[in-house]
């Protein structure tokens, strides 16, 4: 139990990490380190993206599943790791 908390703490402390959001399967954020507005924005938009990506992967081969997604942009990188009921979003600026 505490392992996951510790891992999240370590993630938060890693260089360049701007924020962590944990979203449940309906797209509602349950835990976040960012402000409310950004959280809602990220959660809503990324939820749809991940659902679409997952649907794509599974449509091609139903035995396959999405393991993680990275969206690299000019300013930062958004990493999403989906799980069965939740997904974890981390925003990192690797050049910090």
């Amino acid at each position, binding site marked *: 139990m505490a*392992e996951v908390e510790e*891992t999240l703490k*370590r993630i938060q402390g*890693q260089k360049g990490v701007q924020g962590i959001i944990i979203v449940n399967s309906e797209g509602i954020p349950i835990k976040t380190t960012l402000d409310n507005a950004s959280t809602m924005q990220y959660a809503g938009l990324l939820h749809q993206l991940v659902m679409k990506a997952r649907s794509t992967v599974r449509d091609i081969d*139903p035995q396959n599943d999405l393991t993680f997604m990275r969206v690299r942009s000019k300013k930062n990188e958004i990493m999403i790791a989906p799980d069965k009921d*939740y*997904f974890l979003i*981390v925003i*990192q600026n690797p050049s910090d």
Partner: protein
Amino acid sequence: GQLALTEAELKEEITRTLTTNNPHAPQNIVRYSFKECSYKPVLVMDQMAVHFEMEGNLVYRDLDEARRLEGLPKGSYLNIFNCHINTAFKVNMLFPTVKTKVTLAKAIPHVCFPQVTPASKADKEPKVRSQFNFSEMASQTLNNPMTEISCQTEPPQHCTFSANANQWEIYDAYVEELQKQEKNKEKQKTIQLKEDGDKSKKKMMLTETQNDDINKLGKAAKIIERMLHQNRFDDIAQDFKYFEDPSDEFRGQQGTILPLWEFHYDKIKKLSVTALCWNKKYPDLFSVGLGSWRGMLVFYSLKNSTFPEYIYPTSSSVLCLDIHEQRSYLVAVGFYDGCVAVYNLKREGQEPVYKSTAKTGKHTDPVWQVCWQNDDIENHHNFYSVSSDGRVVSWTLIKVIKDHIKRMYSCCNVYTSVVVLEAIFSYLSCGTSMDFHKQIDYLFLVGTEQGKIHKCKTYSRQYLETYAAHDMPVDTVKWNYFHPNVFISCSSDWTVKIWDHTINTPIFTFDLKAAVGDVAWAPYSSTVFAAVTTDGTVHIFDLNINKDEPLCQQAVMAKHRLTHIEFNPTHPIIIVGDIRGDVASFKLSPNLRQKQKMKKGQVQPKGPEVEVAKMEKLLRLMRGPDLE
């Protein structure tokens, strides 16, 4: 005005004909013919033109209609009135005319008409009914007041439902169904469970549901951590995978080692690295044994250098460890207090699956080396340990399934007893290192505190051979991966020696000018080996290229005393442990990984035979002058 015509024109005769054609009739009407699917002109047109039309009121008296209007004898009346009755009933029921009432009453006496007294008596003679000569008398019955009663039921609850039917949704549904079926089957099988078994299961269920939200993220969190690590150390990851030092071409035969990740963990400060071992199944995972005043067993992955994958604190210093080749989740560990333990990485918890105690025959002195062996005939795992109490002990793990565990359908294999088979060589003088032959199962070497190396067989108490190797304790002895006769040994007497086990004297001797902590053969070549010394230097030799000098001599890790070195079985990486508990990884430059130079056009031969041949050639070269 008028047209002025000439005389000739005036006298011109113009013919006018009278035809019966209607000049206004259209002449070019076309009709679409479906039979021929085309437009066809209608040739014959009606030429009649009506100039005036008027309908009169005169009726010829012999016609039916005239008779109807005049009125006729009874017989014919009925007919007429029958039809009239029908119409009259329908149309004039509530508004009967007096006259029709009277005549109707006469014709059909049983029909009663409400409240209308005939104003005048009916004549025998039927009267001509004039359309215009009648009076209307209306009456209205009571209108029943209309009330509307309606009832409305509550509408059924409805909600909008939408879903996609994708390939994978269908697949998921089938898989779920299959799982349900299997669960049912299992339930049927285990109906005979005893009550206490059920209760304990229920207890487990309760505790699970309390903490179910964030813990499900374990796997996702781990993946994210690795992704972040990859981003942060992106340049190292790229180097690891792709960088080949181009300056090696200009360096002649010399090579370098490129520093990659460094592995630190806060809680292992002041502990020194006492053992390193790569996992053969997962080549990015390696284990580090640590110890000084207390011990720890830590596993790192190259994918995450910031935090270990597994951590096992121990009460006593870990001195040696070995990971099972086939079952890479089993780790055998030897301790400073003489115990040996076996950890199962798949199990939760920080306790070893098995730990030896004084009763089960633990060593009385520190255990310096443990080695897994192949499973014995009964498929039990077994390993050997050597200790400075002078014993080489073989331990076999026997799984015992206790009775009450059998009742629960999920049997966990509990190692409840480890049988000590044959404490061999009890007169051995203080073994400090050990290695088993790579191909021959029962052959092994033991290095001792006195600096001797003994070659032994597992089933015999006799030494096969003794080599007077070093002046100080033999720190490491290792068989060559390829050549069956060659082994290497190192010691704090500053030397590294390479032997052929058939010959009593070393083939090669290297003086490294500082106490040698560890030596290791390369898994990709029979002639390459690496050594670490207490002055913080890594030495890498390739005997095929240079028999006397190292190809690489590099100071690493801030020159702390280096204690151990290991080559990665698949990647060109080495890990080095030092006395401060840090582990650093390095990439070998191409010069250190050279294959034999072939003449142009010749195909590079591959396989262990090549390596053996390479070594053999070398040995023969060294032996040559001796034989002569």
